[in-house]
């Protein structure tokens, strides 16, 4: 990074917009912001050629903090908006960002279908198992016996959503889990996710220090997966169902071709469309 040519390279901090985040100090999302800038720098993607798309939630504020193009849309629809952008502009690097509520609850349908469709984009989910912007309700990934959610006193009592398993079953082409505390390791995984064709899911366990302060312990609980990434969905499924959500790293790398309709015209004049209507 200090080679003589270094001055020509785009440094991570150049991907920051300068708008100061509203996140609580200690929030894991700061680490993820750093990871994204490092990954973009690693790939030397010019800021004008990348677009970060999000919905609603703490982590969905991400686009504002980056110097790329960005879209901060409505709750749950980031993947749909990102799909439209990528299909229309395949030359862009498209990254969707958001949280577990945005992606797996209100946006759950788009999550499944974007995995199925497999557009060449990366989806970064900062999972903190709680709704932060509405004062700490249980989210789809919250454990059933978490009792502090005011709308679910006594716990949700229902099964947590398993995003990586759903992603695998739905057809995502790259599946990884990271810890926001490991900013550099996460940056590497994001870079690989961007590089890999098709739809890449990166779940980042990112503590909510305000509503789930016990998650500060995640950095001591998460461990690198003891095996290398597999391209065998059956093997990946077995691992994802048995690792209790604690293995980090790239867990599945598929080889499905990405969804991208061609955008080449076959006629040179729109007026030719008139012909079919002429008597």
């Amino acid at each position, binding site marked *: *990074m*200090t*080679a*003589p*040519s*270094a001055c020509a390279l785009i440094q*991570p*901090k150049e991907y920051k917009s300068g708008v*100061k*985040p*509203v*996140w*609580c*100090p*200690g929030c*894991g999302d*700061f*680490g993820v912001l750093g990871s994204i800038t*490092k990954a973009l*720098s*690693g790939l030397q993607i010019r800021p004008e050629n990348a677009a970060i798309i999000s919905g*609603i*939630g*703490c982590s969905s504020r991400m686009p504002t903090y980056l110097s790329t193009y960005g879209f901060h849309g409505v*709750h749950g629809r980031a993947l749909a908006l990102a799909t439209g952008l990528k299909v229309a502009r395949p030359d862009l690097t498209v990254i969707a960002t958001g949280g577990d509520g945005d992606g797996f609850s209100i946006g759950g349908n788009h999550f499944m279908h974007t995995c199925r469709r497999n557009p060449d984009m990366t989806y970064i989910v900062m999972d903190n198992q709680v709704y932060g*912007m*509405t*004062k*700490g309700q249980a989210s789809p990934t919250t454990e059933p016996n978490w009792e502090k959610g005011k709308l679910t006193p006594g716990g949700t009592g229902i099964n947590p959503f398993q995003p990586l398993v759903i992603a695998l079953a739905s057809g995502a082409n790259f599946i990884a889990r990271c*810890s*926001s*505390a*490991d*900013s*550099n*390791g996460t*940056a*590497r995984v994001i870079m690989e996710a961007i590089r890999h064709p098709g739809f890449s899911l990166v779940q980042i366990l990112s*503590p909510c*220090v*305000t*509503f789930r302060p016990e998650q*500060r312990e995640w*950095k001591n609980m*998460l*461990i*690198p997966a003891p095996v290398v990434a597999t391209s065998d969905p059956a093997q990946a499924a077995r691992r994802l169902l048995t690792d209790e959500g604690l293995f*980090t790293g790239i867990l599945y790398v598929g080889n499905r071709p990405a969804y991208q309709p061609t955008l080449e015209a076959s006629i040179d004049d729109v007026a030719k469309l008139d012909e079919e209507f002429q008597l």
Partner: protein
Amino acid sequence: MSDSINNPARTIGSTEELLAYSLALETEAVERFNDLADQMETHHNYEVADLFRKLAKIEGLHIENVNQAATGKQLPSLLAWEFEWDDGESPEGGAMQDAHYLMQPWHAIELAMQGEKRAVAFFRHVAETTSDDKVLKMALELVEEEEEHVALLQQWQERFPKPDDGWDEDLDPPAMLE
């Protein structure tokens, strides 16, 4: 994230490489402290914000030192994750999670000091594992330098009483944004 005992940093074989590590460490430290200062400003904790800003400035001076030492040398170009730090994170960069919007100067100095201690440990590890005399010499100098920082921070911290339990109590409930 990985355990430093099971997964020690690799041996450093040249002063260029060591300088690259040193530069990355200080650069990351400047950025972190500035980020933390921004966070504190956003949360109206100006005393600690100023303190972090000051720390960033001091670390900035260290960058200049490293750059001077690197004059005429060709440092290797590494991506963030290609540095093999003890736990994957740069010693002075990984403390973001310890921040709190109600933190007091004592906490901020403590946070900085933990980073400096990790830096000491890192350079000591380099000194212990290198087989290159020049690297050994430079690593020991860096250990000494970082130890000085630790001592300075300790003195600085003594000017502030250790906050009592309950320092993080907020009389207002969290706000609902969206």
